[in-house]
């Protein structure tokens, strides 16, 4: 187990480095003289040169690469061009909102998705199952931003129950979280259902019945325990998606989260912020994936206990 952890940790570090490199490459591919764009050609050449030197952008690319890397490792993501505040502070402020939205949506998705998945799996083929599947299909196919707009109209405008923008009201998170959760709840229900059905079709379920176990025990002791392992880990892997999806929802509901920060950065050509945001988000995803992998190893006795194998 320990060996596995270390191996995955090492892999994660390599991937993080890859993420950093890719981000650096992509951001630096953005065409045009960055500084000039930022300054919107208001400044003269001398000022532009001065700014460039200040930002260290006249250095060769690979030097910038390592310099920035060094800074990042110390927590310094540079400063925003536009707002003159450290990028990191923008990110952390934005993250509070995004995290609140994302985690709320995530919890709703699990609390709705898992039971629905179990229910449809156990009632396979019956009406409840078919309806469930249709519902799942439909929710999964609805574009989140459209759903957001529809919900805004319904709950915000027509019924006036919930706020449709900003974070002032205490219930600001409800509508956005529901919008975000919808698709993921459906997806999780589907995952759960598939894994349970897979477990039911296995030989060990047949053995359990052959021993004289009744449905209830077979399902709870044998089926669910097996189905839970891939399900839990797949759920875990949805979290980055939820956080990513939150970024779009933020724009629709005008929430000051990371997504808004990033989109503003793009519109304002505020590259340090953009770079920092992408880097931050991607790194977060890598870490979540690492955690999920370790969780999986922990839950599955085949990996945890190792193989001893003897006659």
């Amino acid at each position, binding site marked *: 187990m320990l060996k596995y952890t270390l191996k995955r940790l090492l892999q994660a570090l390599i991937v993080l480095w890859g993420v950093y490199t890719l981000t650096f490459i*992509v951001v630096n591919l953005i065409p045009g003289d960055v500084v000039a764009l930022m300054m919107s050609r208001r400044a003269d050449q001398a000022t532009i040169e001065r700014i460039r030197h200040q930002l260290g952008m006249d250095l060769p690319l690979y030097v910038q690469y390592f310099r920035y890397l060094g800074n990042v490792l110390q927590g310094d993501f540079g400063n925003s061009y536009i707002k003159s505040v450290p990028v990191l502070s923008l990110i952390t402020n934005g993250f509070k909102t995004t995290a609140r939205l994302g985690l709320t949506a995530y919890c709703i998705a699990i609390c709705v998705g898992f039971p629905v998945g179990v229910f449809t799996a156990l009632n396979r083929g019956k009406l409840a199952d078919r309806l469930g599947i249709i519902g799942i299909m439909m929710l999964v196919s609805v574009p989140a931003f459209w759903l957001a707009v529809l919900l805004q109209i319904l709950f915000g405008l027509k019924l006036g129950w919930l706020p449709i923008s900003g974070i002032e009201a205490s219930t600001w998170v409800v509508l956005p979280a529901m919008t975000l959760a919808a698709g993921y709840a459906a997806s999780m229900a589907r995952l759960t259902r598939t894994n349970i059905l897979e477990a039911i079709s296995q030989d060990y379920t047949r053995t359990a019945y052959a021993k004289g176990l009744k449905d209830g025990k077979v399902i709870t002791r044998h089926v669910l325990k097996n189905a839970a392992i891939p399900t839990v880990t797949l759920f875990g892997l949805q979290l980055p998606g939820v956080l990513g999806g939150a970024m779009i929802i933020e724009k629709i509901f005008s929430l000051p989260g990371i997504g808004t920060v990033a989109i503003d950065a793009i519109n304002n050509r505020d590259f340090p912020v953009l770079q920092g945001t*992408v880097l931050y988000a991607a790194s977060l995803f890598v870490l979540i994936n690492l955690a999920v992998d370790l969780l999986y190893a922990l839950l599955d006795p085949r990996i945890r206990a190792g193989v001893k194998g003897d006659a």
Partner: protein
Amino acid sequence: MNAFQSIFRRGDGMAAEQAERLAAEQSDRQAAAQNAGEAANKATGSTGANEPCQPETKGPDKSTEGFYRDAFRRLRRNPFAIVAFIIILCLVLAAIFAPLLTPYGYAEQSLKDKWAPCSGTHFFGTDNLGRDIFTRILYGARVSLSVGLIAEMIATTIGVLMGATAGYYGGKIDVIISRIIEVFASFPFMLFAITMTCVLGTGVINCFIAIGLIGWTGMARLIRGEVLRLKNMEFVEAAKANGSSGFRIITKQLVPNCLPTIIVILTMDIPGDILLESTLSFLGLGVQPPTPSWGEMISAAQLYLRQHPGYSIFPGLAIFITILAFNILGDCLRDAMDPKLRR
């Protein structure tokens, strides 16, 4: 394809690693059972006549006509698949024949007619500039479908190549490619797409490229898993013994056997691509006006939320139905091609 692969790919990129790991595990177990069974048979001298129903050492031959015929027959009998297919067909035809289906141009403004309700002359009404919404939806179909298809082609090509190479060669190459896959998969799709449009600029073609460059990781992982499973089978050994080069084996033997998987994943990824395009257009980063895109229309609807809340309905429905149809078709395809169902 095992059950773990029946997950949605967008946003679930990492889950595919899970799926692939579990699939590899299962194939190890199957291989072990096979070996035990074979050894037992050889040792006891059971003959071909008495051999029990064994997992085929040659592997399910997915490149035969029979397989596709079976799959197609199963598909044909599935009412959902038929409906989904018809819907997609209609969309494609609508996109292609858009000019014939409507007298208006998509950019044709008629300010005196703005915000007209649904009527005989304007099936879906008009928007804030008096443009016929029905027309814009039809032309929007062109954008969405072409992006879906082309971006997916790009993603599939990259994904299959990367996945097959990693799976077949194994070792260091596998490690490197797998890390690359992980790196690309770690990026939040949105941010990455947005950044790519920054790099490439906006517009349709760049949309294709941006989406194609992000979306290949899911396919790569699953193809890698398939190839890992297939490469130990007899037909690959036979090809090696014939002296085929790695490239030949990959392209002539392995990929054709993965074709069902590829088709299914492709069909199930297209809705994600379409969604991505709509989202990008929604954010103003995709197709630029006046070219209509469903996503952009919904974005515009947001501006008029209070006065004309119904404006977002038609483009939203269009996206919804398109994505739903592809999802259903992909699902039915997967069921039809699942070798476990084959008797």
